[in-house]
């Protein structure tokens, strides 16, 4: 941030008169606004795309009334959500009830801050990036549990409990599956992790193809993350058929909308982390985006990163409309009996690989053999 501030001051001499902290603050607010606008846009458009994809897969049409081919549907939905009556149940704990959706939304939105959108393009390049994401998305558990508890409704409470149990259980495999990327890069910063995957090998420089264990790690991460964000094969907290939509039954209007937005935000975060940690982030095969002159490097890397992330989001939706919902015991068994041991084995495998082959991946080994 400081370097950015200094470079901005250098670029615009008029800012030199203002104190450094003011320029810094201005930059922070600006980047926050940009990220917020991006998050909201993605969440809106994401909800539309989700329904269109669902329509195609289920041989339906999907929204097609508002605007050409229905592309303005999410705006109409947003307006509807804002205008709807805001109901707080009479016997609910009003303060906690009102607080919960904000916690959930903040938990999901705050993770956007460290997403490495491109070369140097992230609101904050924290040196504890992945750790920060894991910590901040845990806020969602508190929000969800709070929503269930404060609604004073048995179904909401059950839904909240289930959501909390699920998110907490799946946080372990998610974390464990991300650690291989951290090991290979030797850094927790997402920018560093992305940078570690560049190089001469193009596609094969990505962590996904670094060694067999990282390959499996990616799929384990993707499965666990899908569950952590309550995506459909694992959407037990919502289970509308048994739980009348779970922890958010009592919510209406924009409060419900915040839960909804948070869910789509989580989807993007999951896809972005998968991209950054396994799919080479903003790296373009055989092009060094950092070396491009001026703004082009940033733009190219931004486009590539978003492309990869959106493709991952599409895959998530695809999975979502393919698999049927798991039962509670199946869900827990999947996490504790399969994903957790497998991610540990993978972590061990990656560590051993790095130890034995001196940190080299398969492409490097082949190259050294050939050379």
């Amino acid at each position, binding site marked *: 941030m400081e370097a950015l501030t200094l470079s901005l001051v250098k670029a615009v001499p008029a800012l030199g008169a203002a104190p450094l902290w003011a320029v810094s603050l201005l930059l922070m607010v600006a980047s926050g606004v940009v990220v917020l606008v991006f998050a909201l846009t993605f969440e809106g458009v994401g909800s539309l795309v989700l329904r269109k994809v669902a329509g195609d897969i289920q041989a339906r049409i999907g929204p097609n009334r508002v605007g050409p081919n229905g592309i303005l549907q999410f705006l109409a939905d947003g307006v509807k959500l804002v205008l709807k009556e805001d109901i707080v149940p009479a016997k609910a704990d009003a303060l906690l009830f009102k607080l919960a959706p904000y916690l959930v939304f903040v938990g999901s939105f705050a993770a956007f801050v460290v997403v490495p959108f491109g070369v140097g393009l992230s609101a904050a390049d924290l040196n504890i990036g992945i750790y920060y994401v894991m910590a901040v998305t845990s806020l969602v558990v508190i929000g969800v549990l709070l929503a269930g508890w404060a609604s004073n409704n048995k179904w909401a409470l059950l839904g909240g409990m289930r959501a909390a149990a699920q998110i907490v259980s799946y946080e372990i495999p998610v974390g464990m599956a991300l650690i291989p990327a951290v090991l290979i890069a030797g850094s927790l910063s997402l920018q560093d992790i992305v940078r570690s995957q560049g190089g001469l090998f193009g596609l094969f420089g990505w962590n996904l193809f670094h060694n067999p264990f990282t390959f499996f790690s990616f799929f384990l991460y993707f499965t666990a993350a899908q569950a952590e964000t309550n995506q459909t094969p694992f959407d037990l907290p919502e289970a509308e058929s048994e739980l009348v939509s779970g922890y958010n039954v009592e919510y209406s209007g924009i409060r419900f909308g915040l839960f909804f937005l948070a869910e789509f935000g989580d989807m993007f975060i999951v896809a972005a982390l998968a991209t950054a940690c396994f799919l080479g982030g903003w790296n373009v095969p055989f092009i060094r985006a950092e070396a491009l002159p001026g703004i082009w490097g940033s733009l190219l890397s931004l486009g590539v990163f978003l492309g990869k992330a959106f493709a991952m989001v599409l895959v998530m939706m*695809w999975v979502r409309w393919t698999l049927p919902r798991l039962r509670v015991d199946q869900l827990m068994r999947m996490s504790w009996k*399969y994903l957790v041991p497998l991610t540990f084995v993978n972590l061990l495998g990656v560590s051993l690989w790095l130890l034995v082959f001196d940190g080299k991946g398969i492409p490097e080994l082949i190259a050294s053999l050939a050379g």
Partner: protein
Amino acid sequence: MGLREYMNDILEAVVTTAKGMRITARYGVDPKEEVTLQYPEERWEVPERFRGFLHNDVKKCTACTMCVKVCPVDCISLESVRGADKKMVLASYDINIGRCMYCGLCVEVCPPKSLTHTGGYEKASTDRGELILHFIEEDAAEVKARVARQVAEAAAKAAEAAKAAEAAKAAEAPEAADPSSEAGKAAGGDPKPAKEEPKE
């Protein structure tokens, strides 16, 4: 659970997921047919024997009240008067389609086949009153008054004709007073012709 079983479980999960995703991908990329019916513009083609809303062709209806009697939920009601030609005239014919259960008994039992099911099925309303179909536009009392007037006119005409005939007969050959008394009785009975209501 042995290790082999454990590994088999994982393999099965991966394989079945891949299979499922292949199928959904095929649909996602190439949705062969849309099952969606774009309702207000496109409509479902109603089968021939569909039991939609009831319709009564009041021109054919004989006000026999069979439909009223057979209806299990009492959703049909009618009022009628006896007309000048001794036939029943409908004063009102209402069907409460909010109550109707589309059993079709009334249609089966209708002697002149004037009651039929249509293909109609859209009549959502926020007011239950709108769910009562009135097949006779006019007010029942008006119809009754009109029919009564017609009957009275017809009776008066008949009486006049009878008187004229009697006079002619009398002019020809004055005989017994029997036919005149008959005509007089008919004329006298006419002012309240058909107040009977077969509805009950």
